[in-house]
Every structure is written in structure tokens, then in C-alpha cells.
């Protein structure tokens, strides 16, 4: 029976038609998914490189230059692969493929917010980034708007990773002698940590990143601590105890430091 039935599925069989149709749909999905994964990978790699670029600037002018270049490269991403995601999903429910693109978008957010912090000391918000993901497409006669979906969760996941980059930035600033930058980075990491602490029902993925965030806070706080206690700022004289003789030597040289 089987053999017969299997072979003899007539060309006009509704069953055959249904499955052919289903096969088309499923193949479309899979192919699309593959394309999106590739786009996501490209975004990830370039975002990581942009972050690297932003770290590598040591002097203020180098930083300005780096930020400028980073902005250009971020824009290329926005107008390149990220736009392609939007186009790919123009007529498709965006959440259907959110897992394919989440890694790339998170890494992009990490780079984008890192850049905005270095530029203006302020973190670009979700809705601002989402706005950057809107594209006006000019057809032959009309225009249409295409949007690449950035879920707020992806944005927040990217920000959570940002604390790691800020921690690195802070410690780097110490080794290049910029303690103000270090204090600033420290306070941003603290503020972000406090923000995450207050979140409720934040979802598994985000919760998983909390312990890393906590470690980042500890590292950055240890760095500013060391800066204060060992490397820097003269301690307020009022707090000084009776000076043992060896302290005299120490402080005689303390003038003019920093």
C-alpha cells in the first residue's frame, strides 16, 4: 500500500499542493534565517572592532579622532547590514527572526552607546537608536519607510555588556594617567549597576549578565580606590593622623603632584 500511495500521489492532489506550498514557506524561512545570521555575524565583528578602536585612543585628541572614525563606521553599519535586516524583514513579522539577529544588534548597541558616552558623556537611548534604524526608501514614484526592529531587551543586553567596556576603559585611563576619566567611567558603571538592581522581571538573559556586571563594578571600584589611596590625590590634611617621621619625607615631596 505504502509504496503505491507514496509514488502515486497525483499531480493534482490537494495534499501534494498543500505540502509543496508548505515546503516553499519553510524553505523561505530557513534561507532568510541564514541570511540574517550572516548579517548578524558581520555586525558583531565590525562592532567589536569599533569598540577596539575606541579603546585604543589614549590622548584626548586621539579620542576625538577615534570617536569620529567610530561614528562613521557605526553609520556604515546602520546604513549597511542593519538596513539590510530591515529590508529582509520588510514584509515579515520581525520577531519571527529576532533570535537570528540578537547577537549582532546587542554588540552594535555596546559599540554605539560606548561611542556616545565618549562623545558626549551621555548614553544614547533606545528610542534614539531605534530612530536611527528608520530608513526612507525611494521607489520609482513613491517613498516608503522601513524600520529595523531593535527590541528594548536587546538594547538593555547591550548596555549590560557596556559595563565591561567601561571597566576596561576606566583601568586603561589609570594607566594613561587620566584619573578624571576613570572616576567618570566608575560612576557610570555604578549608575548602570544600580539601574539593573532596581529592575523587576528582567528576564533570564539579563539576569544571567548580572554577576558579570557586579564583577565589573567591583573591578572599577577597586581601581578608583587604588587611585585614591596609593596613586594620587593628597588625602585631606584634616584627616591626617600624627605624622610619624617617615611621613614627613613622604609629604615633603607631595607638592605639585597631579
Amino acid at each position, binding site marked *: *500500500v*505504502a509504496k*503505491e*500511495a*507514496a*509514488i502515486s*500521489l497525483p499531480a493534482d*492532489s*490537494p*495534499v*501534494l499542493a*498543500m*505540502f*509543496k*506550498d*508548505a*515546503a516553499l*514557506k*519553510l*524553505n523561505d524561512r*530557513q534561507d532568510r534565517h541564514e541570511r540574517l545570521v550572516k548579517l548578524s555575524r558581520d555586525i558583531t565583528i565590525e562592532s567589536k572592532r569599533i569598540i577596539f578602536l575606541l579603546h585604543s585612543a589614549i590622548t584626548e585628541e586621539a579620542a576625538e579622532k577615534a570617536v569620529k572614525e567610530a561614528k562613521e563606521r557605526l553609520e556604515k553599519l546602520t546604513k549597511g547590514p542593519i538596513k539590510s535586516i530591515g529590508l529582509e524583514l*520588510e*514584509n*515579515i*513579522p*520581525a*520577531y*519571527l527572526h*529576532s533570535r537570528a539577529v540578537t547577537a549582532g544588534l546587542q554588540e552594535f548597541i555596546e559599540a554605539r552607546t560606548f561611542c556616545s558616552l565618549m562623545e558626549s*558623556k*551621555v*548614553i544614547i*537611548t*533606545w*528610542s534614539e537608536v531605534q530612530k536611527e534604524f528608520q530608513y526612507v526608501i525611494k521607489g520609482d514614484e513613491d517613498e516608503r519607510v522601513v524600520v529595523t526592529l531593535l527590541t*528594548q531587551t536587546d538594547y*538593555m543586553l547591550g*548596555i549590560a555588556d557596556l559595563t565591561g567596556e567601561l571597566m576596561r576603559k576606566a583601568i586603561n585611563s589609570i594607566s594613561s594617567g587620566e584619573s578624571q576619566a576613570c572616576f567618570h567611567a566608575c*560612576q*557610570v558603571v555604578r*549608575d*548602570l549597576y544600580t*539601574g*539593573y538592581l*532596581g*529592575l*523587576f*522581571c*528582567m*528576564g533570564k538573559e539579563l539576569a544571567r549578565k548580572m554577576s558579570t556586571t557586579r564583577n565589573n563594578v567591583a573591578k572599577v571600584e577597586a581601581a578608583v580606590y587604588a587611585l585614591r589611596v596609593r596613586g594620587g590625590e593628597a588625602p585631606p590634611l584634616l584627616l591626617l593622623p600624627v605624622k610619624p617621621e617617615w611621613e614627613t619625607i613622604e609629604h615633603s615631596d607631595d607638592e605639585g603632584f597631579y
Partner: protein
Amino acid sequence: MSGNHVVNTIFSDFQKSLDEEQELREVIRNICKDVDQISRKITTVLQVIHHNQAEIGQACLQARELFEKASEGYGKLKEAVPSTDYYKYQDHWRFMTQRYCFLISLTIWLEKGILAPHDTVASVLGISAVEEKEGFHLDIEDYLVGLLHLCSELSRLAVNSVTRGDYEKPLQISKFVMELNAGFRLLNLKNDHLRKRFDALKYDVKKIEEVVYDLSIRGLLPKAQQSTEEA
């Protein structure tokens, strides 16, 4: 500090959206709970087909009534879920919808002996069969999983029909499931869950084949059938 203010805004905005999502999920969960309960009732109602030939028609009628109710539930779901967020919340109704696809396609098979098309099943649930940028619809994968459940149930039915002395149904089932089997072979499956379910289809097919063989070897196949077989 303006930086700090931005951070605060970021988190309070996010918390707000989290809260809204949470609330929405609660609403969805409650609707699904009710609709799911109905599906369980339908399952019980349709169990009778394995033991009592005579009550099959009645069972289908009852199922149909319950589908109406379920369809109301799906209506509420459709209203509750933002039109762009179908796949965001899909996990809440995924298994349930697969079960409905199974139950509906089973009922239609019992009623008319045919395969319920995707859009028919969708329309029984009062939802669209087409996947668009926005909107609540019947995902094709869920529909297909439902059909695999159907094959499984039909292999059981083939066995129990014979016990009940009905030697025609196994053949009917055999033809039907073979067609579906041939159809499924056209799909290049990647999806884990669907693939896994599909891999199990072979065992259902095998079981049905054995039943038909058992009947054939004992000359229990209905006449008309038998001559075709031997041909």
C-alpha cells in the same frame, strides 16, 4: 547630573515596558488557560472513537461546539496581542495551537475523511492562515505538527478499529497517512521540534502497515479493497 538622569530614564522606561509586557503576559496566560482547558475536554470527548464506533458522529458534533468556544478564546487572544508581536509571545499558545490543529484535523477526517487544509483549520479557530508583517495567524509549523499528532492518533485508531471488528478503517487510514507521509517527505525540515516529531512518523506508518498486513494475511480486507491490493 545629566548623564545620571539619562541612565535613570533608560531604566525607568525599560521597567515600564517590562511591566506592560508582564501584564500582557498575564492576560495572555489567563486566556490560554481557559482555551487550553477546552482542548482538554475535546480530547476526552474524542477518546470515544477508539472504543465506540457508533458515537463518533456525536463526538464530532460535541467537538465542533467546543471549537466554537475555543474560537472565541482565540478572538480574545488576537485582540490582546499587539499585531506586530505574534512571535514574541508565541510560546504561550504554541503547544495549545498544535493540539487544536490536531483536534480539528482529526474531527474533519472523522467527518469527511479528508485532510483539513491549513486555511480551514485556521478558520475554525477564527484566525488568519496567512503570515503577514502584522497580525495573529496560524503558523504553518504548528499546523504541520498538528498533522503529525493526527497520524499518531490514527495509527492508534487503526489498531483499535480492528479490535472493534471494523476492518475497513485501517485501510482508509493507511491510504490517508501514506499520503501525508509522502507529503512530509517533501519538506526539508530543520526545525528541531517539527523534525523530531516527523522522525517519529515512521513508526506510526509502520504500525499501520502491520495492521493492514495482518488483515490481508487473514483475508479480512474488505472485498473491493482486496482486489485492488492484489492488482
